[in-house]
């Protein structure tokens, strides 16, 4: 996982925690005078660096999105022209559609797979530690290198196997197929991201007290019924966290696409992040910055909607 997705990941757990320990308005004046200056030395340098390396670039980006800067040379203000043009640009629209369809599909598949693995690992199986070790291996591997390996599997191994067993539709590489390439990206992303979600589900499953199941057993509830009526509602909070973190992370997918298709064939699998990065070399710096600002507003909107949903449903961890 890249920093981005990891940073995005815990936005939500924090929300629940901060208000509880905040005692609004109290002590702000009283304590101001007697704080040990050492505490400022602990925080201020880091805050300064943070502002300089994270906040400043964001503001500079917003500024340049209002110009016609190409990444070099002169520039002048052109107001909201970049934004207007983006809404008329079919390539940008396509990248947004691809990114959202991809993120939605991947979120669903990752969560189904991760929950299944977590249930399996939590069950009465032999060699649990060993099997668990294997399932979490993808977590420690570089997504890019994993994609290179799968790239060969998809473009060489799979077609040869398909031909051998007479499955002609698969006899050409699915990476070269405009309509199927995104499925390969979903598969590799699931392979890479499922362990992280599995860990959260395992934590959830282990938090369910065993008495609940003993009672259900006495009442004669079958195991499938127990899963639907007990396990699922009890780990709903973990599911929500996984869905939110996952969706946000998958919106920013980059490495796996680079390793598999490079955005192709054509521009069929070009994500928003890839388009934005292209502004660095493509001479449309300010245009892609406007794209980045729109991307930011969309992700912010999604975060707000998700927060609202969580609050309304009263889900908490």
């Amino acid at each position: 996982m890249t920093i981005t997705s990891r940073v995005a990941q815990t936005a939500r757990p924090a929300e629940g925690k901060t208000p509880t320990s905040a005692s609004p308005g109290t002590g702000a004046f009283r304590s101001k005078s007697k704080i040990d200056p050492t505490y400022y030395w602990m925080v201020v340098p880091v805050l300064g660096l943070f502002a300089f390396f994270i906040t400043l670039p964001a503001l500079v980006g917003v500024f340049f999105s209002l110009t016609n800067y190409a990444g070099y040379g002169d520039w002048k203000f052109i107001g909201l022209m970049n934004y207007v043009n983006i809404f008329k640009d079919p390539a940008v629209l396509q990248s947004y559609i691809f990114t959202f369809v991809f993120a939605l599909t991947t979120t669903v598949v990752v969560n189904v797979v991760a929950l299944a693995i977590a249930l399996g690992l939590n069950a009465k199986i032999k060699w649990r530690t060993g099997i668990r070790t294997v399932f979490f291996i993808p977590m420690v591997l570089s997504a890019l290198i994993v994609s290179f390996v799968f790239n060969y599997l998809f473009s060489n191994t799979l077609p040869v196997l398909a031909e051998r067993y007479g499955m002609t539709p698969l006899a050409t590489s699915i990476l070269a197929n405009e309509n199927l390439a995104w499925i390969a990206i979903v598969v590799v992303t699931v392979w890479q991201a499922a362990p992280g979600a599995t860990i959260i589900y395992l934590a959830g499953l282990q938090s369910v007290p065993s008495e609940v199941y003993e009672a259900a057993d006495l009442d004669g509830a079958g195991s499938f019924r127990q899963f639907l009526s007990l396990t699922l509602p009890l780990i709903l909070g973990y599911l929500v966290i996984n869905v939110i973190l996952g969706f946000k992370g998958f919106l920013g997918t980059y490495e796996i696409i680079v390793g598999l298709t490079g955005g192709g064939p054509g521009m069929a699998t070009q994500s928003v992040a890839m388009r934005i990065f292209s502004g660095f070399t493509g001479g449309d710096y300010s245009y892609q910055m406007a794209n980045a600002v729109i991307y930011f507003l969309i992700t912010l909107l999604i975060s707000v909607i998700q927060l609202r949903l969580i609050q309304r449903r009263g889900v908490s961890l």
Partner: protein
Amino acid sequence: MTVSTHPEPITGAAAPTRITSGTPRNRKSNREGFKVNWWLTGLMLAASLTILLPLYFTVAMALKSPDQIGTGTGLAWPNPMNWENFAAAYVATNFPRAFMSTAFVTVLSVLGSLACSSLVAYAIARNWNHRFFRGSFVYLLSAMFIPFPVIILPLIKQTALLGLDNPAGVVFLHVLGGISFNTLLYIAFVRSIPVELEESARMDGATTWQVFRKIIFPLLAPMNATVGIFAFLGSWNDFLLPQMMIADPALQTLPVVQMLFQGEFNTNYSLAFASYLMAMAPTLVVYILAQRWVLSGVMRGAVK
């Protein structure tokens, strides 16, 4: 992915487990204490092939000569094995230099993340009533809502201007990029440390720095492990930042160096896979040797 296709049997067996899994951490007695569900064990073993097969494939490919790769599936085990691939890949990618560069970025990022986030978290948690510190916390958290693609273009220009278009610059960003998340983990933990512990030390004349170094930081050990693992994996495997920031190809990190094999005319797969394997091996080996420790560390991060 075969894993996803069997929700029912898995759930079917999941329920009775609870009786054992509810009792904390007694894996040994679990192993003897319940009736093993062999059917499910088989299913899980089969599912774990989805992980093992690509890894086996990578190893098999890395040991083949170009002739052995030919037009086959690549799944057969090579005979004879071609160990020279590793030596060739070692030279082609200038492995020692890439390894040192990656290690430099990773070690400094881990140390930086541990030091910065724990200090910030300590100061914030102990001065929560103070507006400045509470404000700092909200400010750091707000960064979680900014996706990386949004700042990357101006950021690269900025680091290039400052002469930070090298591994040192990447270290800065790894530390700062993870600081919101790490501070969050630490703050929850610092709050659980009783203030009385510090107060007695202060009575004896310890300064705030000494209190932090001698008392707080050692007590944070479990969280240090969690933050350290995340920082290590994130930094070692990062592709985006080094690729975009490091201007001198000679200083590139291991994941970025693998791009070398993606050229149009480069079809030397045996060399490529040997190199992939060498780049993946360090984290894989560390993980397998310390897996219980790594997993418990990551688990702690997940629960928070």
